[in-house]
C-alpha cells in the first residue's frame, strides 16, 4: 500500500500537469472537450493525492520505519490518535496533507461550478491545477514523505511530546483548511481577470470560498492559541511569534475583503481593491508557508530549516510578478464610475475598516520581517518582540473594535444628523456607563477602561440591531420573541451572522484586556505539606498545599506529578495536578527533552495556572503559579465567532432570500436610514 501511495504521488503530478495544460488550452481555444478533460483530471489529481495520503497513513500505522518520515515522527508506543496526526507533524507529511486539501478544494470548486461560470472555469481549474502541481512537485522533490532510509530502525524517534496534545491534532488541519482555501478565490480572481468578468457570479463564488477560508483560519488560530496556552507553559496564548503572525496575516486581509466585497455588491465600487485583497490574501498565505517552512525566521513553531522554503520563495516571487502583470493589463476593465455621497456613510465606514485591517496586517508583516531587513542592511539582527507588536497593534485593534460598532449604525450612501443621533445615543451612553461602573469598582488602568468602554459601545450596537430587527418582525408578523429571533437570523443570515461574529470579537477583546491585570508571581519551592499563599488580581487569597510528588509510568512516558490541595479564602477548590514527563521509546530509552503538563483551574474570572518548572531535590518541586484573568473568554469569543461564521456561511434558499428582501424592505430602510 505504501508503494502504491508513493506511485500515486507521481501519477498525481502528471494529472495536475494535465489539468493545467488542457484546461488553459480549452479556455483559450474555447474547446469544451479539453475543458471537460481538464475538469476530470482535477478530480483524478485529488483521487491520486488521496491514495498517496492513504499510503502514508498506512505506513504510519504499520510502523514502516524504512520511511524516513515514519521513523522521524512516530514510534511503536505512540498512541493511535497521534500516529494519525503525525501525518502533518513533520515537513514532508504536512506538505502532502496540504496538497491533499488543495486538490480536494480544486475538485470541489469544479464540482460546484460544473454548470456555472463556464467561460471562466477553465482558467480557474487550470490555475488550481498549477498551484496543486507546484505543491506536488515540492512534495516529491524537496520534502518527500516516502523517502526511504538505507536501513530500517527497530523503532522510530517518536513524536515531539508538545505535539502529543489534542489541540495539536486539530489545530494544524484547521489552519491548513483555511490557508489552502485562499487558493480558490485566487484562482477565481485569475479566471475573472483573464475573462474580464469581475462581477455577478464571480463575486458570489469568491465570497463563499473566502468565508470558508476565514472560518477555518479563525478556528485554527484560536486552537493554536489554546494549544500554546495549555502546552507551552508560559501562561500566555499569543507571543507574536513569526509563525503565529503568518497565520494572522491572511486572516486580516481576508477579513478586509469580506467587508469590502459588500461595497462592490451594493455599489459596484472597489473592484481593483477587492481583486488586490484576494490576491494579497493568497500571497500572504504562501509567504506564511515560506516563513514556517524555510527556517529563515526562527520560531518555536517552525518546521526545521528545509530546502522547501526556496521552492516557496520562488513560487511567491513568480506568482507576485505574474499576477501583477495580469492585473496591470486589466485595470481598465476594473474601472467603475464610483460615487460616494458622504464621508459619513456605510461605504466610508468599510473603507476605514479596510484601512485599519490592512494597517494591522502591514505592521505585523513589517515587524515579522524587520529582523531579516536589519541583518541585511546593517549586519545586525534586531529582535522585534511582543512589546513592539503590542504597542503598535493595540491602538489599531481598538480603532478596529470601535469601527465594528460604528459601521452598522451608519446608513448606506448618506447618514443624516438626526439618524446618527438616534442610532448612536444608546451605544455611546452604554460605553460611558461601562467605564463609569468599572471606575466606581476601582479600575484605573487607562487601556483597560478604553477596551471596556469600546466593548460596551459595540455590544450595545449589536444588541440594538437585534432588538430593532426582532421588534419589527413581532410587529409585522405577530411572532413570539423566540420565533422572531430565530427567523430574523435565519432569514438574513449574512447580516445577523455577521453581528454574531462581531459579538465574538467583543468578547475576545474584553478577554484580552484581562492581561492588563496579570501580575508576575515568583517561583515557589514546595515539599510535601508545604503551603504557598498568594493573593489573586481580584483580591482573593489562595492557598496551595503540596500533597507531595508521585512517580509512575504510563503509555509512552514516565510521569512525575505534584498534587496540590487548593482553597480560595478558605473555600475548597478542585485539586490541581501538574506534571513533568519524560517520554521513552519501546526499548525504554528516553526520547526528547523532558516536557511538562500544566495544571489549569478554569473559572469565569480567571485561570489558576500552575507550571511545574523543575525539581530542587528529590522531594522539592519548583512551581510557577499564575492567575490569568478572563482567559476562558478568549476561547468563548472564538467559539462565538466560529458560530457566527457558520450562520453566515449556511446556504440560504435564493427564493426565500428574495421573498424576505421584499417583505423586509421597508423596515430595512427604516433601520438603515433612520426615517
Amino acid at each position: 500500500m505504501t508503494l502504491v501511495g508513493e506511485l500515486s504521488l507521481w501519477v498525481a503530478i502528471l494529472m495536475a500537469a494535465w489539468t493545467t495544460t488542457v484546461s488553459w488550452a480549452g479556455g483559450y481555444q474555447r474547446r469544451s472537450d479539453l475543458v471537460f478533460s481538464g475538469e476530470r483530471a482535477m478530480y483524478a489529481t485529488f483521487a491520486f493525492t488521496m491514495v498517496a495520503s492513504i499510503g502514508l497513513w498506512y505506513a504510519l500505522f504499520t510502523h514502516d520505519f524504512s520511511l524516513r518520515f515514519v521513523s522521524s515522527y512516530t514510534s511503536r508506543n505512540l498512541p493511535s490518535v497521534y500516529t494519525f496526526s503525525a501525518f502533518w507533524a513533520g515537513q514532508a507529511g504536512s506538505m502532502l496533507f496540504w496538497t491533499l486539501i488543495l486538490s480536494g478544494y480544486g475538485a470541489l470548486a469544479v464540482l460546484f461550478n460544473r454548470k456555472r461560470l463556464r467561460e471562466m472555469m477553465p482558467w480557474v481549474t487550470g490555475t488550481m491545477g498549477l498551484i496543486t502541481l507546484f505543491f506536488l512537485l515540492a512534495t516529491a522533490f524537496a520534502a518527500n514523505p516516502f523517502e526511504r532510509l538505507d536501513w530500517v530502525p527497530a523503532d522510530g524517534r517518536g513524536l515531539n511530546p508538545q505535539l502529543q496534545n489534542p489541540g495539536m491534532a486539530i489545530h494544524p488541519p484547521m489552519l491548513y483548511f483555511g490557508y489552502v482555501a485562499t487558493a480558490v478565490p485566487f484562482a477565481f480572481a485569475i479566471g475573472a481577470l483573464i475573462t474580464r468578468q469581475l462581477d455577478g457570479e464571480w463575486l458570489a463564488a469568491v465570497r463563499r470560498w473566502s468565508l470558508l477560508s476565514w472560518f477555518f483560519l479563525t478556528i485554527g488560530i484560536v486552537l493554536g492559541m489554546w494549544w500554546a496556552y495549555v502546552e507551552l507553559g508560559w501562561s500566555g496564548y499569543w507571543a507574536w511569534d513569526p509563525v503565529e503572525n503568518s497565520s494572522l496575516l491572511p486572516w486580516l486581509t481576508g477579513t478586509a475583503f469580506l467587508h469590502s466585497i459588500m461595497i462592490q455588491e451594493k455599489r459596484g465600487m472597489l473592484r481593483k481593491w477587492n481583486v488586490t485583497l484576494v490576491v494579497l490574501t493568497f500571497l500572504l498565505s504562501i509567504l506564511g508557508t515560506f516563513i514556517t517552512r524555510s527556517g529563515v525566521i526562527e520560531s518555536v513553531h517552525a518546521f526545521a530549516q528545509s530546502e522547501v522554503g526556496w521552492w516557496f520563495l520562488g513560487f511567491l516571487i513568480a506568482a507576485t510578478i505574474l499576477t501583477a502583470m495580469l492585473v496591470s493589463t486589466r485595470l481598465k476593465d476594473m474601472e467603475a464610475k464610483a460615487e460616494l455621497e458622504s464621508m459619513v456613510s456605510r461605504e466610508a465606514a468599510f473603507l476605514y475598516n479596510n484601512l485599519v485591517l490592512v494597517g494591522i496586517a502591514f505592521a505585523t508583516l513589517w515587524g515579522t520581517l524587520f529582523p531579516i531587513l536589519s541583518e541585511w542592511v546593517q549586519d545586525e539582527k534586531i529582535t522585534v518582540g511582543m512589546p513592539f507588536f503590542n504597542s503598535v497593534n493595540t491602538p489599531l485593534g481598538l480603532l478596529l473594535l470601535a469601527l465594528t460598532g460604528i459601521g452598522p449604525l451608519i446608513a448606506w450612501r448618506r447618514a443624516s444628523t438626526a439618524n446618527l443621533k438616534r442610532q448612536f445615543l444608546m451605544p455611546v451612553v452604554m460605553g460611558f456607563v461601562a467605564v463609569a461602573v468599572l471606575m466606581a469598582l476601582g479600575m484605573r488602568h487607562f487601556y483597560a477602561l478604553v477596551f471596556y468602554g469600546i466593548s460596551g459601545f459595540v455590544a450595545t450596537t449589536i444588541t440594538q440591531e437585534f432588538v430593532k430587527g426582532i421588534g419589527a418582525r413581532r410587529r409585522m408578523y405577530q411572532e413570539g420573541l423566540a420565533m422572531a429571533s430565530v427567523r430574523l437570523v435565519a432569514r438574513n443570515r449574512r447580516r445577523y451572522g455577521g453581528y454574531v461574529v462581531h459579538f465574538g470579537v467583543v468578547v475576545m477583546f474584553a478577554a484580552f484586556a484581562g492581561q492588563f491585570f496579570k501580575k508576575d508571581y515568583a517561583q515557589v519551592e514546595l515539599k510535601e505539606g508545604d503551603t504557598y499563599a498568594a493573593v489573586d488580581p481580584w483580591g482573593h487569597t489562595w492557598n496551595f498545599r503540596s500533597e507531595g510528588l508521585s512517580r509512575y509510568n504510563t503509555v509512552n512516558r514516565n510521569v512525575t506529578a505534584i498534587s496540590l490541595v487548593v482553597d480560595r479564602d478558605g473555600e475548597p477548590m478542585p485539586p490541581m495536578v501538574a506534571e513533568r514527563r519524560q517520554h521513552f521509546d519501546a526499548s525504554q530509552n528516553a526520547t526528547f527533552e523532558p516536557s511538562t503538563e500544566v495544571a489549569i483551574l478554569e473559572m469565569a474570572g480567571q485561570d489558576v495556572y500552575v507550571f511545574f518548572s523543575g525539581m530542587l531535590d528529590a522531594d522539592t518541586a519548583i512551581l510557577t503559579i499564575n492567575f490569568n484573568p478572563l482567559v476562558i473568554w478568549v476561547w468563548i469569543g472564538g467559539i462565538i465567532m466560529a458560530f457566527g461564521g457558520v450562520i453566515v456561511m449556511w446556504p440560504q434558499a435564493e427564493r426565500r432570500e428574495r421573498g424576505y428582501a421584499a417583505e423586509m424592505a421597508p423596515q430595512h430602510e427604516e433601520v438603515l436610514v433612520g426615517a
Partner: protein
Amino acid sequence: MFPSPNAVSRRSFLRRGAAIVPALVMAPGVLQGQVSSTVNMEGNYYLPVRPPAKPNPVVQLDEEAVIALERTLACPCPCTLDIYTCRTTDVTCSNSPAIHGDVIRMVNGGYNADEILLELDKVYGQRIMASPAKSGFSLMVWFMPFAALATGALAIALLVRTWRQNAVNATAARVDGGVGRIGVQATDDEMARLQAALRDDTR
C-alpha cells in the same frame, strides 16, 4: 557503469534547478545571510557576559527590579519570549537561565539596570533587547506602520474626494436628463447656475 561519488543525481539536479535557481535569480542574495545564520532550536545561543565586579559593590536592584529588567530582554533562542518568562517556563532552554545568572552576577557586582543593558549590548548587540530601540535604523520599525497608515488614510481621502465629485456630477447629469425630458427651455447660463446651486446643496 557506476556513478561517480560526486555525481549529482537527476532528482537532485531537478530539485535544485526548479527551486533554487529562480529564487536566486529573482532575489539575489537577500536571504543568504539569514539562512546561513539560522541555528536549530536546540542550539546554544548563550554568550558569557561577565564584567568585573565594581570595587565595594552595592546591590542596586531588588528581585522585582530584576524581573522587570529581564522582561525587557529577549531570549536568544527561537522561543520569542523574554528572559524572565523563558527561564521560568521553558524547561529545555539553557540560554535564559545562563543569562539570568549573568544578570544576577552583575547585580551583585554593583551594576545598575542601564549598566547591565550596556554590558549585554556589547556582547549580544541589539538583538538582546525584546523591543527595538527608538533611534537610528531601529526607529524605522516604529515609524513605518504609522507612516503606511497615514499614507493609506491620505489615499482614501483623495479617493473619496474624487468619488464625491463623481456623485455630484452624476446628480447634475440626472437633473440635466430630467430637464430635457420634460422640455423645460433654459439657456446654457441658466443651466450652469442651476447645476452650481445643486452642487452647493448636495455638499
